[in-house]
């Protein structure tokens, strides 16, 4: 296992800058996820670590060894792709054994290792099936087994769950995490699905336009986004117009501190507070004097989302336990407020 580092990496495709002065450290044995919208450069970073594309500038290190010019076949990596990548002419077991055979391991060792990994991923009954005889989930399981059976220094997962249906995706996600922990492999996971990223990772890196905006634990990225772009991308946010006066934000007739992560122009006329639905608190009123009307209530199991219509027609969402939500009814007038003491402010509506 290795610590992986990208230092000062730049990559252009024609006139498009895919990565610009990109730095990333994946600690030994941890699972780091790169999260971002399509085209943000996350797959490019992963493919540079894999050695499948060359950076225009910058360095790749596995521990203290520079791998920048090392070919993909000599990097000792395991990789699972978004597209089903099993070799169609080989059975599940032959696919798993491919990397071991390339390494010219002894036949006994190959058999033992493939049997072991087939047992771990629970695909023993399917070992003699060809890829077209297996479901998408089974194929990706085999691809995962094929990648880790060679005990790579680094495991690279390029949106391996995106082609699967929801139930299989959840199962395989848990399996990836279990296997990664069991083997202690340094892993880079690339996805655009934030739920996937939050649930599986030791650290999440949020990317936008070829840059890493924030790298931290899922909790810190969610709770303390470094800027509005990260806040908007991670989780759901309400965008509520806000007034700024005397270095304070004024919302729902209350004064709030301005978060240091805020990013707004002093000359801007329109400013917005980014507020998480779970930070919106509701209070019952005795008459119709509340500052919002409940327009919808969505039951989501343990939690519910309440949709509120503000006087100017603005619609915001509040999330709470379903037990608390059951006290409210549609068309009821309520008083809404924000529980946090500081607000993240950005320009625009």
């Amino acid at each position, binding site marked *: 296992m290795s610590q992986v580092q990208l230092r000062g990496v730049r990559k252009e495709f024609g006139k498009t800058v895919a990565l610009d002065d990109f730095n990333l450290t994946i600690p030994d044995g941890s699972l780091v996820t790169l999260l971002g919208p399509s085209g943000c450069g996350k797959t490019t970073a992963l493919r540079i670590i894999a050695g499948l594309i060359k950076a225009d500038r910058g360095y790749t290190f596995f521990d203290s060894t520079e791998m920048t010019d090392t070919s993909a076949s000599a990097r000792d*990596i395991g*990789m699972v792709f978004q597209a089903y990548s099993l070799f*169609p*002419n080989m059975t599940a077991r032959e696919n798993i054994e*491919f990397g071991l055979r*390339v390494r010219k391991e002894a036949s006994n060792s190959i058999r033992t290792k493939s049997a072991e990994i087939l047992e771990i991923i629970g695909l023993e009954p399917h070992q003699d099936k060809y890829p*077209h005889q297996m479901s998408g989930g089974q194929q990706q399981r085999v691809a995962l087994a094929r990648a880790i059976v*060679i005990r790579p220094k680094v495991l690279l997962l390029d949106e391996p769950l995106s082609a699967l249906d929801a139930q299989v995706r959840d199962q395989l996600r848990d399996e990836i995490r279990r296997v990664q922990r069991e083997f202690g492999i340094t892993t880079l996971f690339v996805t655009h699905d934030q739920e996937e990223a939050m649930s599986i990772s030791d650290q999440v890196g949020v990317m936008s336009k070829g840059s890493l905006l924030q790298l931290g634990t899922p909790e810190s990225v969610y709770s303390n986004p470094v800027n509005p772009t990260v806040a908007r991308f991670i989780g759901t946010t309400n965008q509520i117009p806000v007034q700024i006066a005397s270095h304070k934000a004024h919302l729902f007739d209350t004064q709030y501190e301005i978060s240091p992560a805020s990013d707004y122009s002093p000359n801007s006329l329109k400013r917005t507070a980014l507020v998480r639905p779970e930070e919106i608190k509701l209070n019952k009123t005795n008459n119709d004097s509340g500052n919002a009307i409940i327009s919808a209530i969505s039951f989501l199991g343990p939690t519910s989302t309440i949709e509120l219509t503000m006087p100017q027609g603005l619609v915001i969402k509040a999330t709470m336990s379903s037990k608390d939500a059951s006290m409210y009814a549609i068309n009821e007038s309520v008083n809404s407020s924000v529980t946090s003491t500081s607000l993240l402010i950005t320009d625009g509506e």
Partner: protein
Amino acid sequence: MKFVRELLRFTLIAVGILFFVLPIYASSLFAFQENDGSFTAKPLQSAAQNEELMESLFLTLQIAFGTVVLTLLLLIPTIAYLHLVIPGARAWVEFLTLTPLVIPPIVQGVGFLYSMPTSFKATPYALIFAYVILALPFSYRAIDAAFSTIDIRTLYDASRSLGARFITVIMRVLIPNIATGIFGAIFLTIALVLGEFAYASLLLWDTFPTMLAVAGLSDASTAVALSVVSLIGVWILLNALTLFNRRDRQAVPMGGR
């Protein structure tokens, strides 16, 4: 309306079959039927006893083998490279491979004669190089189409990430998955070499087709009998390819990838 459509379809199929079968049937009657209406294998026996004809057949098979080997050695890595590295150039290369169809054989033959080193001109095996070019429109398309049916980029990257070198990727991953295209290219190339007359005649080499033409001048029934046999032979080869293709798809289909 449905009846008219069925009738039209039946008529078209019948005309198509007659178009192919009638000349073979007529040639077979000409070659194998005696005056009293009985059938004989004499033309084939006399062909087997014709040493020059048999030597030319053997030479042509050798040239066909060389052509197939050179074609595969040239095309498989080239097309793999085109798909992986410069997919934008595929249309241009495909256009280039079609040129043997539009340049007259006399122009190609003379050009070929002048461009060959003298030592090559002295051997009939020089025809291998000419036939590789002549077969390009068919062999290139067969292999290129097979490459298009697989996700070559992902398979290549997956193999490389598992530690495979380029030659291992070609031999163990790509070739098994484009086998039907390779067999198509092989059979089409053999069929072309077995029937190519213009080049061999221009360059004065006694290949099977040129000897067949010479034999036809003195013993027409032998020449026609051999033509029918080689035609049926090629037809069987192509059908074997189709059969192989179907069985291969049942075993390892590319679908669902």
